[in-house]
């Protein structure tokens, strides 16, 4: 069922013809926060209540997009006079480059990547321009956790606009077993807009998305992530498609990219992606858990919960060596009983 929905979502298949199925399809899109993407594909061909629902989603996504563009403008403004050119990651990049992957996409925050050497300067510039450490992670332990173990600064929230920014200096945590060569990707980045910001090239965008989805997280938004991969893949020209796996190998991200190609090939029926995978398939044993989890997440309900069980330990395992993981979980559980944050109930993430 879900696979059919995914294909309808990107316009590879028509909308479900029966009323009840169409209602179920829209409900599915709503649950997965992809109504905006559905709107970009289907609003023009819709009428009546369906058109209303899609228009509503388009307007909401338009707001996110405006917010994102403006945040980019503000980041460039904050860094004016320095020669730091942050790379926009994920949604920010898709919007800056007007990619299909960015259309109708819901966003809650903006991610940028800067060389580690510039990290302090970037943080200082942002703080001077009105960003503040996010309350929910302002505690000493969280600060230490982010700074020492992770691949980003603790999130900053702008005091007036209340938007969040994640400043990364690498693409996977320092402690993760997968170490992507972010330096290579950073130096291949290209200017966006007026040149004060940058974006990755198309291949690196796909690679980063694959890393983010399969090697760094709990896969919380499966439909959204998979649709993103599909569009990013479609955005590659022939030469890029052919070179994709080589580039992935070069930057040390081959296995997530192979997972991603598997997803695009299997779920969206892309022959091109299937051909690229060719004989270089991952050993079934390594591939199986992730793929089961993807399938489970897509099915929702009990399957999704099962997938969570598979994925939650995995997401941590991907990020930290075992000893450190034990320490972190211990600290986390202790924090449940002994919170560091002194300010109660303030709006924060999670």
């Amino acid at each position, binding site marked *: 069922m879900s696979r059919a929905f995914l294909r309808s979502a990107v316009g590879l298949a*028509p*909308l479900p013809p*029966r*009323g*009840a199925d*169409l*209602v179920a399809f*829209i*409900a599915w899109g*709503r*649950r997965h926060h992809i109504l905006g993407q559905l709107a970009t594909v*289907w609003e023009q*061909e*819709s*009428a*009546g*209540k*369906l*058109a*209303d*629902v899609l*228009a*509503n989603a388009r*307007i*909401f996504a*338009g*707001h996110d997009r*405006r917010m994102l563009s403006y945040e980019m403008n503000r980041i460039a403004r904050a860094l004016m006079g320095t020669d730091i050119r942050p790379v926009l990651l994920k949604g920010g990049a898709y919007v800056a480059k007007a990619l299909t992957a960015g259309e109708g996409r819901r966003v809650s925050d903006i991610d940028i990547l800067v060389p580690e050497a510039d990290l302090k300067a970037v943080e200082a510039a942002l703080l001077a321009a009105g960003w503040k450490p996010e309350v929910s992670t302002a505690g000493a332990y969280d600060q230490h956790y982010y700074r020492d173990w992770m691949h980003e600064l603790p999130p900053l929230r702008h005091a007036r606009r209340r938007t969040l920014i994640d400043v990364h200096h690498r693409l996977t945590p320092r402690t993760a077993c997968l170490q992507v060569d972010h330096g290579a990707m950073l130096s291949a980045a290209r200017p966006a807009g007026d040149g004060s910001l940058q974006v990755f090239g198309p291949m690196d965008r796909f690679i980063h998305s694959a890393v983010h989805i399969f090697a760094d997280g709990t896969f919380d938004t499966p439909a959204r992530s998979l649709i993103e991969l599909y569009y990013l893949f479609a955005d590659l020209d022939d030469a890029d498609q052919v070179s994709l796996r080589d580039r992935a190998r070069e930057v040390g991200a081959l296995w997530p990219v192979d997972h991603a190609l598997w997803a695009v090939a299997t779920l969206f029926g892309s022959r091109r992606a299937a051909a690229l995978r060719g004989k270089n398939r991952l050993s079934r044993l390594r591939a199986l858990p992730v793929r089961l989890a993807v399938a489970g997440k897509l099915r929702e309900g009990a399957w999704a919960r099962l997938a969570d069980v598979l994925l939650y330990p995995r997401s941590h395992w991907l990020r930290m060596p075992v000893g450190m993981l034990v320490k972190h979980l211990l600290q986390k559980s202790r924090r449940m009983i002994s919170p560091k944050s002194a300010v109660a109930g303030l709006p924060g993430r999670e």
Partner: protein
Amino acid sequence: MSGSWNGSVGPEAMKRLADHAVRDVAAALARGHLVLHLGPFALALRTDNAAARDFLVSMYANCPVSLDQDTMADFSLHVRPPNLLRRFVRRQVMPDPGFYFPSVPLPPRMGPLALEMGMNMAVALQCFRFAIYHAAVVADETGAIVISANSGGGKSTLAAALMQENFRLLSDEFAIMQPGEPLLLPYPRPVSLKNASVDIVRAFAGNDAMSGVLHGTPKGTIGYRRARKSDIAAMHRPARGRLLLFPTFMEGAKAEVKPVEAGDAVMRFIAGSPNYHVLGEAAYTSLMAFADSIRAYDITYGNTADSVALVRELWTQGGAA
């Protein structure tokens, strides 16, 4: 495949809630297939709560509804127990608009409140096709009176009183503004009354106009004044704003009127909107046109009769701004 995907049956041909057998209504409600078509919105409802169901059947009798699973809705609302355990251990009920929003759990007898709160939430937090402002709206043929919601200002009581004066009810809770144009759209749901207002409105509107009363809710004593058949019949007819009021009720106060500059009025009005910023330019355009077409006043009053007399006077003087 052009224009064929509409996902709904023609709302004009739809039966009223009262025309359906209660048993069918209950069955559709239990499955979440009951779709209420009111003004610009179609709302899919689901509940097992008997109090909420009875309330719906009584207060929304004249609204068009569909009971089949083929009908697309703008929003869906599930009035349900907070979790499985609560269903048995200590029965409670709460609105669940489909996104994470753990609202105040209520005892089952307060199902109607959970339903009404949920319907407000569904619109306030999920509607982006129209700019929503926290205000009551009533209108006659010449235009609309928008009553902004000051806390304790008596917005709903005043709206109910003006219904008695032959204004039609557009909405008790939201001024729903068309993007790009200063048109206000009707969404005529029951008028929600708190504490002393319940009896005040009952006294002039009559018992038949009222719902039962819920005591001891998180908002105090709550009762509803139903939208009339004529209000429902006009639910697709928008109105143009002429008067914007910021009411303050003060026990025993002398009735008083003070003009509010349009610039100030706009600022206050936006502060009561949950979605102004989401609509961006379209909301700005319609709001500026609205500001040009209204006169705005702070009004202070000590009783309902005063407030009605005062509004009558403002309404007849000056014509359109």
